């Protein structure tokens, strides 16, 4: 029996102590007609070698970023993960721990969470951050809930430039809680028209840089939100914030984002880690966990989960959210990543991204391919308009070993020939040159 250490002798001794004759006697409370009387119709048990072969066989069928030159981003990025990240987060004391409900026995994790909160607040330029959320999309939906609760308003204004999947998750959450979602249109790849925002609007949400790569004008967005008395919510790429003025400098009320670019594998979209930072005045209403520094009876410093009365295990239906699990292990990956890189390393990643992206923007303008939004500033991703359907070009380039980007026609009407191309610090000049050559051959 895998992982079950009991011997026949153990079972007999334990049953004798309990005072029953068989394990079946312990199940008397389950009515007989509800008990399974035949084995489940599932595959046979596999030994450890067979398990590895089976899963490795499935993994081999996938085309992954170690086998293709990778330009698909759209919110999750093929960034380099330093070896220290995997080595440290796989330590059993971190990997196999539970929520630090007993702080004396969990100071290691609690301190890393405090460090995570500090680093994320700093990267976003905000007062404070929580101890992480499930992912960027649900973090944004929770921000909308918070804004609605704070303002007692029910309309959420969100830019069409926000990740389409994030907006779909928001739609689902909004429907469940009777909020109305209003979409702010894009003009030439950026949010420009805030005229529909009014006194019913709880918050204005924009993404920075947006899904199409454009660096949005956060001054304009903040002004529109402020005028209406709405909160200003920014979905921000933490790596871009190493080089761009962070949302806090634009007086954002809440900043959310996806922490994957900070040392977490793309992993087919999970596990990820949601970032959530805000102004201090909202701290008692935020979702999820937060760790605070305090001291013990002898005055020794220590860390503990704090403001617990917001949480569902205490306030039940009056809690600020139903979130119980956070993403502590992935938050630890972010913390190790940011510690290993430091401010100059993160800045270097951001700068290399800009250099590679600027180079690719010029190099890929071959055979009629051109920038879709020529006048917009971008950080690490741009929309490339092709003379052919983007799906077809993507498919033909995969055959040549290049994952060229995301065809945008699935998400934006009229963009069937537009490819969203992400260029991270891990691409080389030679790879980009090859992309240009292969692209010109398939066009």
């Amino acid at each position, binding site marked *: 029996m895998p992982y*079950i250490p009991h011997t026949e002798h153990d079972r007999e001794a334990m049953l004798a*102590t*309990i005072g029953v004759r068989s394990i079946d006697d312990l199940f008397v409370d389950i009515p007989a007609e*509800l008990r399974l009387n035949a084995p*489940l119709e*599932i*595959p046979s*048990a*596999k030994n450890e070698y067979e398990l*590895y072969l089976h899963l490795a066989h*499935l*993994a081999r069928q*996938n085309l992954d*970023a170690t086998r293709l030159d990778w330009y*698909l981003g*759209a919110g*999750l990025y093929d960034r380099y993960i330093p070896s*220290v990240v995997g*080595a440290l987060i796989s330590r*059993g*004391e*971190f*990997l196999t*721990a*539970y929520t630090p*409900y007993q702080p*004396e*026995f969990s100071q*290691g994790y609690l301190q890393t*969470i*405090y460090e995570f909160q500090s680093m994320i607040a700093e990267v976003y330029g905000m007062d404070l951050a929580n101890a992480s959320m*499930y*992912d960027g999309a*649900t973090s944004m939906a929770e921000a909308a809930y918070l804004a609605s609760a704070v303002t007692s308003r029910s309309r959420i204004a969100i830019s069409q430039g926000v990740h389409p*999947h994030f907006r779909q998750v928001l739609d689902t959450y909004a429907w469940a809680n009777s909020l109305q979602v209003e979409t702010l249109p894009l003009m030439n790849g950026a949010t420009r028209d805030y005229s529909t925002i009014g006194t019913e609007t709880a918050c204005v949400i924009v993404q920075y840089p947006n899904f199409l790569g454009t660096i949005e004008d956060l001054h304009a967005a903040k002004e529109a939100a402020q005028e209406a008395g709405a909160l200003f919510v920014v979905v921000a790429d933490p790596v871009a914030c190493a080089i761009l003025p962070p949302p806090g400098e634009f007086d954002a009320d809440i900043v959310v984002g996806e922490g994957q670019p900070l040392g977490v594998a793309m*992993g087919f979209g*999970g596990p990820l880690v949601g970032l959530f930072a805000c102004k201090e005045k909202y701290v008692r209403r935020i979702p999820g966990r937060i760790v605070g520094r305090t001291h*013990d009876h002898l005055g020794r410093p220590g860390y*503990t989960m*704090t403001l617990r009365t917001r*949480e569902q*295990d205490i306030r039940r239906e009056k809690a600020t*959210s*139903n979130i*119980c*699990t956070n993403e502590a*292990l992935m938050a630890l990956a972010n913390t*190790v990543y940011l510690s*290993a*890189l*430091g*401010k100059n*390393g*993160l*800045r270097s990643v951001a*700068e*290399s991204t800009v250099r590679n992206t600027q180079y690719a923007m010029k190099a890929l303008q071959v055979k009629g391919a051109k920038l879709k939004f020529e006048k917009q500033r971008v950080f690490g991703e741009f929309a490339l308009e092709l003379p052919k359907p983007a799906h077809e070009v993507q498919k033909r380039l995969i055959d040549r070993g290049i*994952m060229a980007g995301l065809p945008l026609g699935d998400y934006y009407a009229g963009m069937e020939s537009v490819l969203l191309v992400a260029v991270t*610090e891990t691409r080389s*000049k030679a790879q980009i040159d090859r992309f240009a050559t292969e692209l010109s051959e398939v066009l």
Partner: protein
Amino acid sequence: MPTKKVQQPQLIFDKSSPGRIGCNLPVADTPEVDLSAALGDLRRELQLPELGELDVVRHFTNLSHLNYGIDTGFYPLGSCSMKYNPRINERTAGIPGFTHIHPMQPPATVPGALEVLAQTQEILCQVTGFDEITLQPLAGAHGELTCLMLIKAFHAENGEGDQRTVVLVPDSAHGTNPASAAICGYSVKTVPTDTDGGCDLNALRAALGPDVAAFMVTNPSTLGLFETNIREICDMVHAVGGQVFCDGANMNAMVGTTRPGDHGFDCMHLNLHKTFSTPHGGGGPGCGAIGLKSHLEPYLPVPVVRRSRASGSVELDYTRPHSIGRVSAYFGQFLMEVRALTYLLAFGREHMADISRHAVLNANYIKARLKDVLPAAHDRPCMHECVLTAEKYKREYGVRALDISKRLIDYGFHPPTNYFPLIVPEALMIEPTETECKETLDQFCDAVIAICEEARTNPQLLHDAPTTQIVGRLDEAAAVKNLDVRFRSAEPSKLNV
């Protein structure tokens, strides 16, 4: 016992020295660019720690020594199913063909990943007895919320959306149940527990009416008891048009022995991180999944992952007019799903029932060994966890359940869950799981018995505990009053640009 001599750790920010870097990073070989010209305004300052790689490794390794996981020792947290996390799971989840794929790449380029999703769903359908499984929810509470959304959509479709506004929750329920109901726009009504630890059927009957959208039942209950009348309960709720949700936190007691889908439930959440052994990681990632009967199938979140009957290949179905939409950005906690599938296949058809049988055996063994010092709240065979009460010690010696727990730390054990369920005074909820051997259970029981003796003879030992850790009991009131949730440096640093 002596106080452990460990230096108070510094924050990583305090170890920083300008100009150090802890990683040999890739740097672009493309031409340099004028950043202001490319980007406009640039960031002026960024305060992150600067350390060499070795000091980063030491910092986090030393912090790990101040933490306790299953790999370190016994972790009998009730309702959390802290079972061993097999290392083969880590190995399979670390294969580049899984770690380096993107959820938005063409489905045709990830048939192996889609196969992982389909196989996991298919096995979980069999294990739970439900018609459909979706792996999109990101944690248990997220699965609860998703189930309530399906129920909400179902009632709306039947034209009863405005009428059904109430969700019933037992008084013993996890706090996430009422919170999820409230987040989903419902008002919450509590159903009491009867003296045997089951759902009070008379109270339930009185609470049922045309306004009830759903009843959220944890089975086995958080008292560690199987709800013997579950069939009747489901029938009663269905008779007034309500739906019954099963909180699957305690699925470990049922795996391979009985199936909630056969009990009359309409939907259920699963904590794959509990029952199917994916690591908890200090509070997350969790990994949710939900099972449902076919009448809720039209409302499933998109995309639906399903094996084509014709071709046998796995497809993504987005064309679903009644879907509630997306509940998370992609396909759930994919790498955790790889781990869960690995675990399910390790047990397979032959061994699946061994899980629940040994989980239940271990819990009843602890309950029997401790019955003279800490009686069970209800004297019935327990399922995979037992709820004991320390009420006598509070009354007679002024020692609370929390004091016993804190003293357990001095004996080298992680404490059980305290003060839950809320309806048991001075509750200690112990869940050993099936992966612990008899010797470990005996050592734990010996420690509890010794501590109970200390409670009678020297209660101060318990009040002062723990004394073996780097900190003693922390001042939580001060943490709230003088809120300090981030490091701030005295002087902001400028970027080296």
